[in-house]
């Protein structure tokens, strides 16, 4: 079974990149991006502060974050202008629904993967895509991360898989087998490339365009193969912690967040995406029913209280995570929180009405001038600001040369 787990790791959420010694010599600490999302949004009255500007009285869901109040920003009235309830949630990090992806030059390329493309060659994993527990099926599957050609990256969903990927040393036999498979894959890719060229001759124009995707895929696969061949002999870092358990949700969410801190600290990656799945075992929070069931509260007080418990738990963990980022330093001795931007939110604004509007958006860490405030974007048909404008700003701060990301009409550089 070992071999298949390896294959799985390679396929799921992890792509290998070129080691870069220059990265260590860099005087300036690299930028990092962590995105965290849940499937059902946040209770609006608990998440959005009453007034604009400086954060004074925190609403109930933000109270667990009180000690970090100077280090985060809450945004109101930002969204992607999509609709479809659960079935539009997967557009959270891209702004674009999968079915509409074809109409966009970069399809539904997601924020995290765009950042990963930039950070790519610097770390072992250009990005880590994770789910804090079993991935849901159907519409409730989060599907957060999308490649430039519009393919969803399945997440790692157990701490075991994540821990092994980050820290487990490969045994020499496996390494040899992998090297051998690299050679084989290289040779197969050459062959299928030649065959596709043959096929192309028989196709009409529209079908040739379709086949182009295949050629691009071959080139990309070859490039990544080359990169992974170079990483294969780089030793992995020491884990700073034992393998954390993920049997209950009280274990799983903190465990994944802790491993993200370790991954950033060891510079194993600079981009991490974590989904909080709808399969969340809320029995562990002493609730009976399902996360989805509570999100359909329909104003019923008991159900709303249950949902508050679930959402408060998430905010407590985000708070603890920010606390860790403050104390843990990178190789330059700077606290991670200075160089790490954390985006928390959801593709659903209000789970009960299934609205994809006014998404809950929290940005923490990094050096962002709006921290400590509630930024209220304008409303009204023609004055709304696309959430992609904020994403553009975050990407620029990350160091990418993006002018407008996906649906952006500009940036939020003035505010953020």
């Amino acid at each position, binding site marked *: 079974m070992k071999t298949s787990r390896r294959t799985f790791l*390679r396929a799921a959420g992890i792509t290998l990149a070129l080691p870069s010694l220059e990265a260590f010599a860099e005087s300036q600490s690299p930028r990092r991006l962590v995105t965290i999302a849940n499937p059902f949004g946040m209770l609006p009255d608990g998440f959005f502060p009453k007034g604009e500007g400086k954060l004074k009285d925190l609403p109930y869901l933000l109270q667990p974050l009180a000690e970090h109040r100077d280090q985060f920003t809450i945004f109101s009235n930002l969204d992607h202008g999509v609709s479809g309830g659960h079935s539009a949630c997967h557009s959270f990090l891209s702004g674009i629904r999968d079915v509409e992806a074809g109409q966009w030059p970069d399809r539904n390329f997601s924020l995290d993967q765009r950042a990963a493309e930039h950070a790519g060659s610097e770390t072992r994993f250009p990005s880590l895509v994770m789910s804090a527990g079993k991935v849901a099926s159907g519409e409730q599957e989060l599907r957060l991360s999308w490649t430039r050609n519009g393919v969803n990256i399945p997440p790692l969903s157990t701490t075991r898989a994540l821990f092994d990927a980050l820290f487990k040393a490969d045994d020499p036999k496996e390494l040899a087998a992998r090297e051998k498979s690299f050679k084989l894959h290289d*040779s*197969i890719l050459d062959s299928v490339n030649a065959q596709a060229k043959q096929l192309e001759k028989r196709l*009409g124009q529209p079908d040739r365009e379709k086949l182009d995707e*295949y050629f691009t895929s071959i080139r990309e696969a070859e490039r990544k193969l080359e990169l992974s061949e170079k990483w294969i002999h780089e030793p992995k870092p020491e884990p700073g912690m034992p393998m954390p358990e993920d049997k209950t949700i009280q274990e799983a969410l903190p465990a994944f967040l802790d491993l993200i801190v370790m991954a950033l600290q060891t510079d194993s990656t600079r981009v991490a995406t974590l989904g909080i799945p709808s399969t969340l075992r809320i029995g562990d929070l002493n609730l009976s029913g399902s996360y989805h069931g509570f999100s359909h509260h329909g104003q019923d007080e008991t159900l709303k209280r249950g949902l508050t418990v679930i959402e408060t738990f998430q905010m407590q963990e985000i708070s603890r995570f920010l606390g860790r980022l403050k104390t843990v330093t990178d190789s330059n001795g700077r606290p991670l929180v200075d160089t790490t931007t954390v985006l928390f939110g959801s593709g659903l604004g209000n789970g009960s*009405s*299934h609205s994809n509007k006014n998404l809950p958006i929290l940005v923490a860490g990094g050096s962002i001038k709006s921290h400590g405030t509630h930024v209220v974007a304008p409303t009204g048909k023609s004055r709304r600001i696309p959430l992609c404008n904020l994403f553009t700003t975050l990407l620029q701060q990350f160091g990418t040369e993006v002018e407008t990301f996906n649906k952006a009409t500009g940036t939020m550089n003035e505010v953020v």
Partner: protein
Amino acid sequence: MKRFFFFILFFSGVSFTTAKPFSPDEFIASYCLECHDEDVQKGDRSFEELGNDFSDLYTMEAWQEILDQLNLGEMPPKKADQPTSGESMAMVNWVTAELTKARESLDADLARPVLRRLNKSQYDQTVRSLLDLHPMLADPTETFPPDVKVEHFDTVGSALVMSDFLLNSYLASASLLVEKATCTTPEAPKTQKWEFQAPFSRLPARPDGLDVPGEYQHIRKNPTFEDGYLWLDKFTKGVPHDGWYDITFKAKAVNRNYPYDEDRVGVAKDEKLRVSVITGNADYGDLKAANGSDRPLFTVDLPDDKPEVFQQRVWLDRGYQPRFTFPNGPNRTKPLRSYTVVNYPGRFQDFLQFIKPGDNEFRGLDPAWLTGEKARHPATQKKGGKLDATQFYTNKNSNEGWIAWTKDFEGPRVRLYEISIEGPFFQEWPTRSHEMLYSGYEPTLENAEMILRRFAARAFRRPATKPELDSLLTVTRDYAAAGNSELDSIQAGLKAVLCSPGFLFLEKEENATDPEKDYALASRLSYFLWSDMPDYGLKQLATSGKLRDPEEYRKTVLGMIGDARSDQFIDSFTGSWLQLEKVGTQPPSQSIYPEYYTQSLEEAMLEETRLFARHLLRENLSIENFLQSDFTFLNGNLARHYHIDHVVGHHFRKVKLFDRRRGGLLGHASVLTASANGIDTSPVIRGIYVLENILGTPPTPPPPDVEPIEPDIRGVTTIREQLIKHREVETCAECHEKIDPIGFALENYDPIGGWRIRYMETGKKPMVDASGQFPDGTGFKDAIELKSELLERRRQFAHALTEKLLIYGTGRTMTITDRHHIDRIVHDLEEKGWGFGDLVLLVTESRPFVGKR
């Protein structure tokens, strides 16, 4: 009136004479522009700038839409000025004639199939056929990213993107498959036998003394619960080789006729208790609960008196072990305890001493039972604290408490005596899978060309070309040159076949020769009707050119429909069309809908729809049955869900319906569950579902500045009141007056398709009002009348269904250039009497499916 117009569509060549000269521009100006000018643009449509240049595709599409609205009688709306029937007729006639002219001059080649890659399920099915690995438990597409769906179909080429990520998954999967299918030893692995005695698995956390080590062990609950699985503790590594194994076990039912109320326990007394054998792999997680590797193997009915021995031969992959469940077992234990203790206190004497007087869980229990002489178990005294009277009761939820109850609980149970596994057995060695790869040749470099040629011809669904073969051979030769063994090198080439474009893509070879086109057509047919690669016979028809003969083609299609493999077409097509894939992804509440779990309703409701659709196809029954029918397929569980008597047992059978609330897709629990969300129902979602999937007229998405309705289940305002308010907003009204009434008609069905008269919500339980009317004024008072109304719109339904079949079969969405082909199919279908089989045949004979010959 409107139906008359619709009919005209099919006689577009006929010219009508009108009294006064007719001007389409005048018609538009008089009856359309009030709402559809540049300023108002109702429904996002403006005809102010719409010209008469029909060669422009967008113009053509707009006119087609206008024509459809006129034919349906939906526009102009009732409240607006109406054209005279003469004017309407002239307009319909003029647009129809213009559209026909435009189509003739269009490049007709636009109506054609496209190049597309295999989707996940097609890939899965194909590799199983290609390598004779049908029963394989592992999912070769496990790591593939999900396919994007367009109009709910995952067969649309433009959305089936290729990426390096996917290509890497293909590489990994190819290695796995080739290695799995290869026999590496000269002899078959030896057959072994493993025997197991009770306790088979760790006893439950609360042993109740009912299991007897060395004799038997029980299963007490259904498998949706932890502890619902009985597994083999001493066999967690599973079987050592892929192969066929005999699973033997001895079992009986206990307490089928239990002494409690059937509705409270949730287990039907007139049904046999059952055991399901489910296999799983410990690498994927705990064996004691559902796990990602679970695959059902078989299910048996248990005898009530003497234990019986059951044996079945099943396929197991290496690492998998059989596990046992009680699928119709009771659900939640805690409510069962409260219920039985309150109603039968005399039978639970030992448990009574765990109950504190006034305990809310046992309210309704006569307090006299608690004042007897029963000894109280003193609780441990808190350090330094006083003993308080309430602490004299040991916790009712302690192990002791539970044991005291379970040992006296006479609920239904499954008793398993002994279990054995024997295998692997092989019919031949090397296996057929091995033969499929190497075609009977020794895997030597000398044979490389023969082996690869034969395998590629099957994998590519056509002979491989010389350059293709050369390039595959290069992989093998290079690998051998690098010092690898002959077998490894052959395998390298075979793996390359499974990553080749010839394998991964379904081709539309425009510049190809005739035989190549025939192979492509054979593949298209085969993936349409079987979701699988063409078999030998179908490929022979392509090779011989016989597919080009219309009579032969027709016979082939009918033969394929009659073949059992067309089940896969029905399962896959209805899964997408009716979004049945959603069933199970949003599980309903265990406490509100326990029957969903104890009666295996999920499985049963899906089976009903599949059997129903297969029956319509094979018997060539009218597609009107989808709208309304006087029969369906039921087993005992589903019949109880529908309150239909005299259907007992777990097998499905055709049942004549007298109750009009059932019958037709809108009476199927599967459809009603797929159009809800497991928690509650929404008339908006169900309304859109019907417009989209039955009538083929999906409403435009809501304008971006409108907030969705915030549900309120406190009973203050009903959803009907909220929606009435919503419709007061003019931009909302336009679509919602089409959506909501249909949805309301289905409100008598709860989120799992059960019939309800009142809403089951937390506040006051309001009555369901299912009445409504179509925008044209036709009223209906409930779902039954709605179904009759839909039946009146059978042509519209036929149109929608045809379009969906074409999307599914050709791999692209339909455009204006396909429109007249669809019209033609519907017209021919009506003449033939609406048979579903005829419809599928007409689709396969149509230009969009066949392409240019």
